[in-house]
């Protein structure tokens, strides 16, 4: 009898468990399997196989039965915004949450997660970002600096393929770049004027995870050059942009060490009081609704910032009555995101004999310039800016009959259109938090999350400054018809939610150490957005991938040393 039980347990035992298959989970799977660890990779949603599970990827506009509109049936399942183009929509009743304050939580619950849906912008952090909290006195000091992460940025960039221009800016370090794509002549015009007019501002090509010149490492992954289809979010059959599905997961699969298990909702992490470490995870099979247990020596938590935090909070034990690793009571607190509220648009009537042609998957980018060298504004930190300018067909829909048809079939080139969007840093504060609902549970028996996050005066001031500065730059550049607005969108609308289990030096004020290990349970690693002690302004995915690769390699070293 004992033997049968032991054998059964053995069958459920791996070297490592990775919770989540998104952009960071895929990297954990790749690195751990490459190092020879047998990894169980859990995904709460369905499987999505590269190419074969991108059913809409090659459909022409007229091939959609409702020309993209979602049927009533789809609306019933996926919500009012359902459409027939995006195959990666979340079921409306999948995971309810309570908005104590408005919060928009975008999730990618399928193999690949949000790596199929991201904007693919890949900007490195610098020490202007890592030293921010210490210098300006907010959040907690990062336990790492740029030098710790720089080699891992390189490691990741080479593998995923990043198109970029070497700009030589201290605020946004250069990386391992494939050639950049073009930017428009009006973006070039703005760059010339702004860089002459302001000593502190630069307009650069927005570095992106698209393969512009495939290297052998990309061919080995079966990925090809980006063909500017710009249908990225249907899934790219070419693997032109980086996703877990096109890259890290098949790579891990090829080692023969990965077991991918979809339909596996992680309920909690099992903590062994005697051993003083985590021994596995409790999983609810979403199809059978059965609770299963899997065991491993190390556990990587990559379920996405809030979901990873939710798992830790739901992992209570005698040692950790308030959630795994929560000795200081900060788990679920200091939730932060990016401030995307500011928008400035304009027109330009220069270069009227020129236009753009084709489609670009990226844009221009203005790295943060506010409070960079020193703090000198009436708000903390600053913002980066996404920027694009183009001149394609303008197609008026005025009139009826032949007039309308003439407009539709003889599109005219209007003036240049210019658009800029804000990516502002959020200051993590204790009151911006998530917590488990004491009674309400979802269909898998996991307590629902209560979101309690709000803007602060710092954010309002930053939006105001953003709009003023972009308006000024556009004015200097000779743009006209400048329009600006503050969307007052709900927190989370940026899809860059961060924090909840932040890194830090001190277990009393942070959950994770400098290796993304839970301070007080060192065989659990959290390497997604939950780990972020501050947000800076860069699109965060590249940094999550670098943290994950670094932590996975550290984990393997620690196993070798028998430390975990």
């Amino acid at each position: 009898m004992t033997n049968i039980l032991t054998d059964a347990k053995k069958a459920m035992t791996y070297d490592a468990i990775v919770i989540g298959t998104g952009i960071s989970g895929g990297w954990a799977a790749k690195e751990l399997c490459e190092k020879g660890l047998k990894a169980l990779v859990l995904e709460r949603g369905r499987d999505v196989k590269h190419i074969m599970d991108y059913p809409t990827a090659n459909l022409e506009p007229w091939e959609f039965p409702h020309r993209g509109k979602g049927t009533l049936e789809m609306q019933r399942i996926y919500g009012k915004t359902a459409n027939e183009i995006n195959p990666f929509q979340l079921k409306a009743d999948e995971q309810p949450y309570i908005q104590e304050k408005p919060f928009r939580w975008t999730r990618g619950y399928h193999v690949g997660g949000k790596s199929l849906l991201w904007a693919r912008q890949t900007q490195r952090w610098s020490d202007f970002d890592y030293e921010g909290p210490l210098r300006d006195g907010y959040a907690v000091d990062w336990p790492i600096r740029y030098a710790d992460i720089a080699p891992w940025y390189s490691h990741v960039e080479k593998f995923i393929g990043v198109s970029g221009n070497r700009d030589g800016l201290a605020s946004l370090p250069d990386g391992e770049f494939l050639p950049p794509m073009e930017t428009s002549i009006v973006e070039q015009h703005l760059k010339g004027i702004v860089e002459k007019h302001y000593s502190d501002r630069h307009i650069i090509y927005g570095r992106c995870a698209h393969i512009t010149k495939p290297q052998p490492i990309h061919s080995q992954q079966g990925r090809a050059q980006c063909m500017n289809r710009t249908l990225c979010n249907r899934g790219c059959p070419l693997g032109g942009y980086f996703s877990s599905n096109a890259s890290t997961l098949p790579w891990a699969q090829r080692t023969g060490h990965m077991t991918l298990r979809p339909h596996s909702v992680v309920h909690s992490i099992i903590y062994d009081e005697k051993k003083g470490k985590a021994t596995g995870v409790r999983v609810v099979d979403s199809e059978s609704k059965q609770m299963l247990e899997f065991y491993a020596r190390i556990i990587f938590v990559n379920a996405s910032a809030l979901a990873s935090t939710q798992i830790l909070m739901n992992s209570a034990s005698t040692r950790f009555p308030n959630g795994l690793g929560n000795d200081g009571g900060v788990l679920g607190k200091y939730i932060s995101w990016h401030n995307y509220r500011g928008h400035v648009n304009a027109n330009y009537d220069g270069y009227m004999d020129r236009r753009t042609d084709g489609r670009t998957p990226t844009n221009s980018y203005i790295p943060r310039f506010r409070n960079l060298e020193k703090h000198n504004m009436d708000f903390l930190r600053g913002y980066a800016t996404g920027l694009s300018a183009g001149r394609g067909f303008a197609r008026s829909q005025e009139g009826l009959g032949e007039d309308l048809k003439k407009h539709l079939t003889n599109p005219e080139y209007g003036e240049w259109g210019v658009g800029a969007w804000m990516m502002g840093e959020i200051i993590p504060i204790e009151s911006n938090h998530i917590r488990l609902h004491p009674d309400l549970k979802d269909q898998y028996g996991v307590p629902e999350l209560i979101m309690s996050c709000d803007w602060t005066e710092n954010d309002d001031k930053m939006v105001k400054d953003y709009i003023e500065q972009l308006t000024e730059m556009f004015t200097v550049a000779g743009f006209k018809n400048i329009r600006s607005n503050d969307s007052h969108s709900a927190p989370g609308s940026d899809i860059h939610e961060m924090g909840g289990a932040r890194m830090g030096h001190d277990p009393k004020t942070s959950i994770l150490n400098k290796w993304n290990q839970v301070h007080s349970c060192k065989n659990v690693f959290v390497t997604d957005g939950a780990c972020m002690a501050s947000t800076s302004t860069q699109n965060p995915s590249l940094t999550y991938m670098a943290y994950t690769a670094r932590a996975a390699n550290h984990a393997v070293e620690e196993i070798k040393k028998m430390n975990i």
Partner: protein
Amino acid sequence: MVFIVGSAISLPSWANGLSKTVTYQPGTSLSADDNPLLTSVADTIIPTTDTPGAKELGVPALIQKILADCYEKDVNDSFYKGMNWANDKAKADAGKPFAECTTEQRLVVLKRAQAEDPASDQGKFIKMAKELTILGYTSSEYVVKKVNKYVMIPGHYYGNVPLNYVDPNARN
């Protein structure tokens, strides 16, 4: 162009498991081809000239399908009531059904609908009819290929070309 539900184009496979049966079918007894009123509305909004218009590109059937599959009953009811309003106006003004009026007479009626309260059935009808006709027309194979010269692959991006630039890969 006759549209039969469940033929020609199937739903993407991720939508499998969704019922393909159209549960609410407006204009109950009318199929697209024998719905001359809807056909003439779409044809009036985007007429046939020296190039195909909405009618030839199958837009009326598409409108009926999208309305039935993607919009609630109240939206459908308003649409069809508004369309009947247009038919009644045509009869009152020109003494014959909308579909039998001249292009000029039909345009007068549709423009009258546009001048009505946007919250009225006729206001909702003309807004939706125009929106769906434009959607169906601009996403038709003819317009995508011949007018927009859209090429999915290979794509490209040039940030600075002369206004009259013609890409060698573009459909002609």
